[in-house]
C-alpha cells in the first residue's frame, strides 16, 4: 500500500488527532451528502420555520422525555440489582421469580407489555397517572436487561476475590460494597449506558398510551404543519442531544474507573 495513503487512512499508535478528525469529518460528510442528495432528488425545500410556533410544546415534551428517562433508569437500576441478587439467591423461589421475570420481559414485544400494563395491571391497581405508569413500565422493561447486565458482571468476578474478601472477615454486605461492586461497575458501565440510551429511545413507544413525550408531540405537530421531514429531522436531533452526552459521560466514567486486571 502507498505510504502516504496508509498514513492518512490507517490508524496506528502514531496517528495524530488531526488525521483522526479528518477521517471523522470525512465520514460525516459522506453521510451528509447521501442525505442531501436524497433530499435533492425528491426536490424538497426544507423550511424549519414551520416548527417555530410549536417551540414551547417541544421544550415541554423534551423535558418530559428526559424526566421519564431519568426516573425509569433509576427504577431499572433498582429492579436490575435486586433481580440480579435474586437470581443468585439460594432461595429457589427468588431465583425462579427472577428467571421468569427476565424470560417474560425479554421474550415479548415492549408494545404488548405497555398495553398489558395499561389495560390490566394499571386498571386493577387503580393507577391513573400515565407518567408514573410510563416510568414503571419502562423501568420494568429495561430492568430485565439491566438484570442480565449486572448478573454477567457479578459472574465475571472470580471466586478468588470472594475467597479473599471472606478470609479477611468482610461481612457479605461489605464484600459486595467494597470489593465486588466496584469491580463490577467498571466492567458493566459500557453495557449499562448503552441500555440507558436504548431506554430513552424506547420511551417514544409510551406515546401509544398517550404519554405526552417527545415523539408524540412531534407527531402531533406534524399533523398541524405537514412538514414531516423537518419534524422528523428535529426529532432525531433532539434524541441525539440526549444520547450523545450519555455516550460521552460513559467514556469519561470508564476512564475514571479504569485499571488493568
Amino acid at each position: 500500500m502507498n505510504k502516504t495513503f496508509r498514513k492518512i487512512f490507517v490508524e496506528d499508535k502514531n496517528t495524530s488527532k488531526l488525521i483522526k478528525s479528518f477521517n471523522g469529518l470525512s465520514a460525516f460528510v459522506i453521510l451528509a451528502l447521501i442525505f442531501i442528495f436524497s433530499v435533492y432528488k425528491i426536490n424538497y425545500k426544507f423550511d424549519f420555520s414551520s416548527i417555530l410556533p410549536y417551540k414551547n410544546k417541544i421544550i415541554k415534551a423534551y423535558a418530559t422525555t428526559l424526566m421519564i428517562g431519568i426516573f425509569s433508569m433509576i427504577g431499572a437500576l433498582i429492579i436490575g440489582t435486586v433481580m440480579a441478587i435474586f437470581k443468585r439467591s439460594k432461595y429457589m423461589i427468588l431465583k425462579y421469580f427472577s428467571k421468569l421475570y427476565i424470560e417474560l420481559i425479554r421474550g415479548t414485544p415492549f408494545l404488548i407489555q405497555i398495553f398489558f400494563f395499561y389495560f390490566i395491571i394499571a386498571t386493577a391497581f387503580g393507577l391513573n397517572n400515565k407518567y408514573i405508569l410510563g416510568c414503571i413500565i419502562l423501568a420494568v422493561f429495561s430492568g430485565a436487561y439491566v438484570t442480565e447486565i449486572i448478573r454477567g458482571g457479578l459472574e465475571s468476578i472470580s471466586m478468588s476475590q470472594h475467597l479473599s474478601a471472606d478470609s479477611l472477615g468482610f461481612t457479605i454486605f461489605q464484600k459486595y460494597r467494597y470489593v465486588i461492586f466496584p469491580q463490577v461497575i467498571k466492567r458493566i458501565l459500557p453495557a449499562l449506558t448503552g441500555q440507558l440510551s436504548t431506554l430513552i429511545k424506547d420511551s417514544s413507544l409510551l406515546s401509544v398510551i398517550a404519554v405526552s413525550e417527545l415523539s408524540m408531540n412531534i407527531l402531533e405537530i406534524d399533523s398541524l404543519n405537514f412538514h414531516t421531514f423537518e419534524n422528523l429531522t428535529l426529532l432525531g436531533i433532539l434524541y441525539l442531544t440526549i444520547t450523545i452526552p450519555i455516550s460521552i459521560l460513559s467514556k469519561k466514567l470508564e476512564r475514571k474507573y479504569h485499571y488493568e486486571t
Partner: protein
Amino acid sequence: MKLKFKNVCKNYGNQVVLNNLTGVVSNAKAIVIIGPSGGGKSTLLRILAGLEDPDSGKITLNNHILPKSHKDIREYRKQMAVVFQAFNLFPHLSAIDNIALPLEKVHNFSKSESINRGYKLLEQFKIEEHKDKKPNQLSGGQKQRVAIARAFALNPEVMFLDEPTSALDPDLTYEVLDAIKELKRNNKQLILVTHEMKFAREIGDYGMFIKDGIIFESGEANAFFNNPKSESLKRFLDRGM
C-alpha cells in the same frame, strides 16, 4: 500453636479429597504441609482457615473449634489471615488501600490509622515505594509481599499461607520467602503449604506430608525432614532435593 483434628473428610462430587484425616500437633510455631499436587494440602489449609467446611470431622486450633456456624465463622476469620497462591489482591485498589480497607472496615480502625499502619507494613516488607500502584503495576513478588503485609496487618493469631511462591518466577521467590521469614521473626504462628523444600526445612518446626487425601507422615521437623519413616515421604523428599 496447638492443632488437633479428627476424622476430617472432604469430597468434591465423587472425588475424595481428604480421606479421614486425624492428627495432633501439641506445640509448634510453624507447621509446614508438603506433598504432591492435588493431594489435598490446600483443601486442608482452607478448611483450617475457616474458608471451607469439612463434610465431617472436628478441628481444634488453639482454643477455636471448627466447623463453626455461619455467624461465628466470620469472627474466626477475623482472627486468622490467609495468603493465597494467586495473591488475590483487590485489583481496583492501590497497594496501600488493599492493606487499609480491611483494617478500616473489618477491624474498625480510623481511616488515617489504617493508612498509617498500612504504610508501616509496606516499609517493613520493603515495598513502600510502590504504595500507590495498583496490583497490575506490581511484579508477582511485590504483589505477594503486599498480600502478606495485608494479612499481617490484621495481627492475626495464625497466618495461613497457601503455596505463596508457586505462581512466581524463581528469581522473585526469594523476596517472598524473605517476607515469610520476617513473619517468623515477628513470632507469628504459621501454617504453610509449600513446594519449596529447602525453605520448608528452614522455617518449619513441624512437618506434615499429605498425599492422596491421607497424612502419610507427620512429626517434629528435624526427624520429619532428616529421618523420614515412610517410604513415600522419603521418595518425595529425595525427588524434591
